């Protein structure tokens, strides 16, 4: 099942396309990270998937084909917005009450237990809670709806390192305990390296690269060798990003072969998630490279059956 699936999805604000020709298929059971610079279209895509805004082109479904924004979709999806909006003058208890009455499903006992474990007093006004506690309260309100998909827009932007760690630990624990799938956005790559196992790289309103992190890392290599040969060698490879000095060159390439054979005098190194993402983000033109597409694979297996 795909938790978010879009085809030709686009969103235009006046004359500007915030998102264009976006076709993704994010499988369930993952922590999928939307990564890209500010203005890349991450929030737009999440808002469209959550049904908070309507597309200008194409369509998007969630949780195995439920149209975004439909009651069936809304029941299964919980969305925590970027600034974690909260009524500052309402107590944590009031926030639970409010959320319970605004939703068809809300697990009051779960929410109270969770806040108790976190040491967040129900009487305390939301505005008086620390940044980390506000984030945890927002997460509790989302999880108490017992969603199948948790969508987090820049969840850690305003948190200190300990609060970030605790917040992520809470999200990951919910994944184990309740089988929730997670889709989150961030422009801080480093904090995603331990968490994300599915990556969607966005740039200038388009999806540049999407796929299972292990697959992506396995299909890319950093080649290091003499700069004099770099141009000639690069013609035979699909180079994502090239850099280097006068004598030595580094080529981040997409490999088609599984084995790591390289030309004599060259060394191949595995790449990390951050290195890979930065290489693509520095080369917005490398967008056309096809990512491992789930749906195409699925249909092929269906045919072969």
């Amino acid at each position: 099942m795909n938790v978010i699936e879009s085809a030709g999805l686009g969103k235009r604000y006046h004359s500007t396309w915030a998102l264009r020709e976006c076709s993704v298929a994010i499988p369930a059971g993952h922590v999928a990270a939307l990564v890209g610079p500010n203005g890349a279209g991450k929030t737009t895509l999440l808002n469209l998937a959550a049904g908070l805004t309507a597309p200008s082109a194409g369509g998007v479904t969630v949780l195995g084909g439920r149209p975004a924004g439909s009651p069936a979709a809304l029941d299964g999806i919980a969305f925590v917005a970027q600034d974690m909006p909260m009524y500052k003058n309402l107590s944590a208890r009031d926030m639970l009450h409010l959320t319970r009455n605004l939703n068809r499903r809300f697990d009051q006992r779960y929410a109270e237990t969770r806040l108790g474990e976190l040491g967040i007093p129900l009487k305390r006004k939301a505005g008086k809670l620390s940044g980390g506690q506000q984030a945890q309260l927002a997460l509790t309100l989302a999880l108490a709806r017992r969603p199948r998909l948790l969508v987090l827009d820049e969840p850690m932007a305003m948190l200190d390192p300990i609060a970030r760690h605790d917040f992520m630990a809470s999200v990951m624990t919910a994944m184990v305990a309740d089988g929730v799938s997670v889709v989150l956005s961030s422009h801080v790559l480093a904090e995603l390296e331990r968490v994300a196992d599915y990556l969607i790289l966005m740039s200038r309103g388009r999806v540049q690269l999407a796929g299972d992190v292990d697959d992506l890392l396995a299909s890319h290599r950093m080649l290091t060798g003499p700069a004099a040969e770099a141009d000639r060698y690069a013609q035979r490879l699909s180079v994502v990003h090239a850099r280097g000095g006068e004598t030595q060159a580094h080529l981040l390439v997409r490999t088609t072969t599984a084995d790591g054979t390289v030309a004599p005098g060259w060394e191949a190194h595995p790449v990390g998630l951050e290195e890979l993402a930065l290489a693509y983000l520095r080369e917005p033109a490398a967008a056309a490279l096809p990512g491992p597409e789930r749906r195409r694979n699925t249909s092929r297996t269906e045919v072969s059956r």
Partner: protein
Amino acid sequence: MTIDKGISEEPRRPAGASPIEFRLDPASGVPTYLQLVHQVEHALRLGYLKPGDQLPKVRDVVAALAINPNTVLKAYKDLETKGLAAGRPGQGTFVQAALSQVALPELAGLRKGLLGWLTDAGAAGLDEDGVVALFTSVLRDFYKGRGGSAGRGVASGGTEGVA
């Protein structure tokens, strides 16, 4: 080794607790799941873990390290493939086998050979970093040639080199 699996044999740990806890080194560059695998292997070699011991529960690892549960599952699957651990439905993952140890006399012989080689390397002008670079490179090529057990080879090399 007793045949009787009496309760007195059980260490005083709460049910479901593991004798070890994982840590992560973000600067190592080693993939997270491999770090977990290496730590289990290391603990097996040093006797912190023995057959029958429970590995940390996925939920506990995830809560402590804030990592993706799939990463922990991948590490445990890797350990299962290597025959070192086995999952028990509804309970968790348990250590299945001890890591094969090289007998002490043989180890001493190997150590002596390595010392001789290090002396030669020093005489040829290699400093410590040079030795590490050369050794790592040869080690990688050696295990690559033998068909891909480089990960374990490097891990065991590191551990025994220190010992």
